[in-house]
């Protein structure tokens, strides 16, 4: 499928460094030339209040929600998440409630939780399910959520719509349905940073959850950085003055950047369409490219985590050990150094696979899902083409083969072939 985009970028296999930006690991989309031109050509006097309001209106229109006034604008997604956590802490009796999160979340979210959440925190270890050989299924994930919800009866449940590392699209509607059966009062807080602009997010879903955050600069390709929050029960949030960067009140506008607002307004036009057909088209395009990429990668050189029908524009792949830094040039490095830290005596782990759950107390570092997995990730946006993807996959395969020929041992113990020989010798 070909997507008509306003402006096309190019990718040359002779410029490996370009790949890390072009297929960005963090899914930060590239601003189109039209958007850039629009921002550059703006008049000197763009009313701040009007810019903020226009973003809310256009984004509300894009989401197809009825109440655009329920949209809040923040410096980035993490700032929006922090705002919700702070507000919830204020609303909670004595500021204490139980929070259930998963271990596949962005490390910055854990940092925010650590700083802002006073009550018990339960961490559901979904990574074991997602990264198990052969991948996982919605049924297994729902069973894990069910066990955790029954155990914890959380005041707040926070999870990602799309797992940022593996790219697995979680069955949000089924999870919400489970929550409403098991713990109806639970506040459901969904992080759609990797979802909006990558897949279609139905307006109905936004009304089922209590808060939904996303980003303007990732899959929607606005200028960095912008965080957006939609909350159906708006009055408790005070969106008129979100107190962080993008206030509607000119005098308290903080450090908000008007170019970011203008860029986002323009970028949204590329995703427009009253009936949502354009977003569905983009979803299919992104998924198609991702699947194409997977099929083109040499499976002797790369392992791709199977996520079945839950694929979208994200592909997580694990180069074999011999590739070392060669592939890093193309893939924005690894996420090996990520860590999740929670301290205190009210933090505990729930193993998603335990038939009889054990509450493991944690006080310190949790192994992030990326730890020890040598994961690289590529993102396929609406502006990529099949040719781009082919060139990218070919570049990776060539780089890997070149490294294999040299058989340069790296910190992961040498080539796959060498590893196989050593295993055979050992046997």
């Amino acid at each position, binding site marked *: 499928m070909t997507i008509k985009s306003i402006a096309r970028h190019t990718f040359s296999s002779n410029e490996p460094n370009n790949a890390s930006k072009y297929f960005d690991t963090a899914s930060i989309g590239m601003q189109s030339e039209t958007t850039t031109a629009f921002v550059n050509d703006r008049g000197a006097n763009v009313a701040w209040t009007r810019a903020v309001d226009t973003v809310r209106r256009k984004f509300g229109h894009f989401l197809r929600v009825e109440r655009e006034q329920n949209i809040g604008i923040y410096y980035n997604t993490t700032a929006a998440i922090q705002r919700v956590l702070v507000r*919830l802490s204020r*609303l*909670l*009796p004595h500021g*204490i*409630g*139980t929070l259930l999160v998963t271990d596949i979340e962005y490390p910055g979210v854990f940092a925010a939780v650590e700083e802002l959440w006073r009550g*018990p925190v*339960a961490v559901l270890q979904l990574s074991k399910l997602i990264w198990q050989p052969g991948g996982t299924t919605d049924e297994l994930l729902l069973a894990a959520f*069910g*066990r955790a919800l*029954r*155990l*914890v*009866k959380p*005041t707040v449940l926070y999870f990602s719509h799309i797992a940022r590392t593996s790219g697995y699209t979680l069955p949000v509607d089924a999870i919400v349905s*489970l929550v*409403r*059966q*098991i713990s*109806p*009062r639970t*506040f459901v807080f969904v992080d759609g940073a990797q979802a909006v602009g990558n897949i279609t997010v139905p307006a109905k879903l936004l009304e089922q959850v*209590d808060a939904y955050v996303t980003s303007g600069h990732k899959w929607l390709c606005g200028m960095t950085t912008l965080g957006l929050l939609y909350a159906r*029960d708006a*009055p*408790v949030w005070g969106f008129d003055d979100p107190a962080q960067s993008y206030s509607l009140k000119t005098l308290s506008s903080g450090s908000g950047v008007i170019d970011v607002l203008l860029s986002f307004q323009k970028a949204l036009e590329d995703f427009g369409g009253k009936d949502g057909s354009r977003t569905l088209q983009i979803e299919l395009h992104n998924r198609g490219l991702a699947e194409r990429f997977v099929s083109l990668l040499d499976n002797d050189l790369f392992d791709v985590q199977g996520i079945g029908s839950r694929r979208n524009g994200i592909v997580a792949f694990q180069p074999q050990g011999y590739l070392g830094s060669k592939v890093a040039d193309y893939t924005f490095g690894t996420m090996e150094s990520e860590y999740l830290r929670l301290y205190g*005596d*009210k933090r*505990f782990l729930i193993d998603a696979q*335990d*038939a*009889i*759950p*054990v*509450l493991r*107390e944690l006080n310190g570092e949790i192994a992030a899902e990326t730890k020890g997995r040598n994961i690289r990730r590529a993102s396929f946006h609406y502006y990529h083409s099949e040719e781009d993807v082919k060139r990218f996959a070919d570049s990776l395969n060539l780089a890997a083969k070149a490294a294999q020929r040299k058989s340069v041992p790296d910190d992961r113990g040498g080539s796959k072939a060498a590893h196989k020989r050593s295993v055979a010798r050992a046997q």
Partner: protein
Amino acid sequence: MPSPHNIEPAVVLLVGDFQDAFTVEAWKAIVEEVVNEAVRPASGSIAERRMRLKEQLLGCYETEPVFNCLTAFSENLVLPLPLPDGGVASSPHFLSALLRTLANYNVVAIISSGTATNTTHLFRHLGPLPIPVLVVVATVSDLLRIHPSERTNPTDRHATLRRSNALRLIPNNERQAVAIALQAMSLSLTHSVTLFDASAPDYYVTDLIRVLRDQFAEASQSSRMQLRVTNDSSELAKTDVGVFVGYLSQYDNVIAPLKQRPKHLVLSDGCYDPLRWTPTTDDIATNIWLAQPRHRVQTLAVDAYAAVLQVWRESLRHEQHPVDERLESATTLLRLALEGVEFGDRYSFSARENTSGGYRIDLVQERSK
């Protein structure tokens, strides 16, 4: 979980020793209530259906069969399930059964009819899980208080933490101690009361004795009233008014065999057993005065169940509640429900303790066998 309605049923656990009369009485009372709720007048041949369901549930103290029996009625109902602690809630077996039950069933609250010690173990097992526990039998004030020693003792940390999610429906020992002390003082002609201290390793006994000592110490400042404490049963026998704090089994082993007994013997509510004692007005060789809560365990257990049902049904209408209301803890909602008009004036909570109701002291005699 299997459900004919494809909706996961809510469950309330009754935890206790089903060899014990208190727990059995609580279970019977809850079964009566749930049968009435499950088989509504519209369902035809009500009496027969109620009887059949009741027969299936009474005497069945295993979680799964009870669940299977009740799932047909799960819509808009909270299913009560028994979870026996076997009298030893500290055992790994009980911990495993508890966690398995919590993971497999949607347990929205727990009613504890175990002893004080076992309720403490239950708290510890639950750790930081915020499931509300409604205590209907264990009568020890220490259960719900935070002691400085516990704050630094990691093994007690979760037992302490859990207390914020507990509600004690039965009044605390201070109220019982006041009732026992006043009764004993009013009976004594010699301004002396003897307390038998068997030094049982039990929260209930040690706590009640401590509070009784405090009561008498306070009384002695304004009167000649004295409290003598002994662990020699023969000393107790010689006295005019004796107080025994402990359980019925200890009473049977230590006090009942005595040939000579005090003129008046006041027993704590640990000796209460509906099958053992009956009220009397007869003046017999030893007048036995039994302390018991004004509201019996059956009443408290049914109230606990009814409050859970009320809160759950309200929770199902979550979409009508604004966010700030939905964030209220289940324990607070249960407290507010119990303080409502539907429950008369049986509950008025100060922190997590019911200060309403209190204790009464009745003159009793052994039931004829």
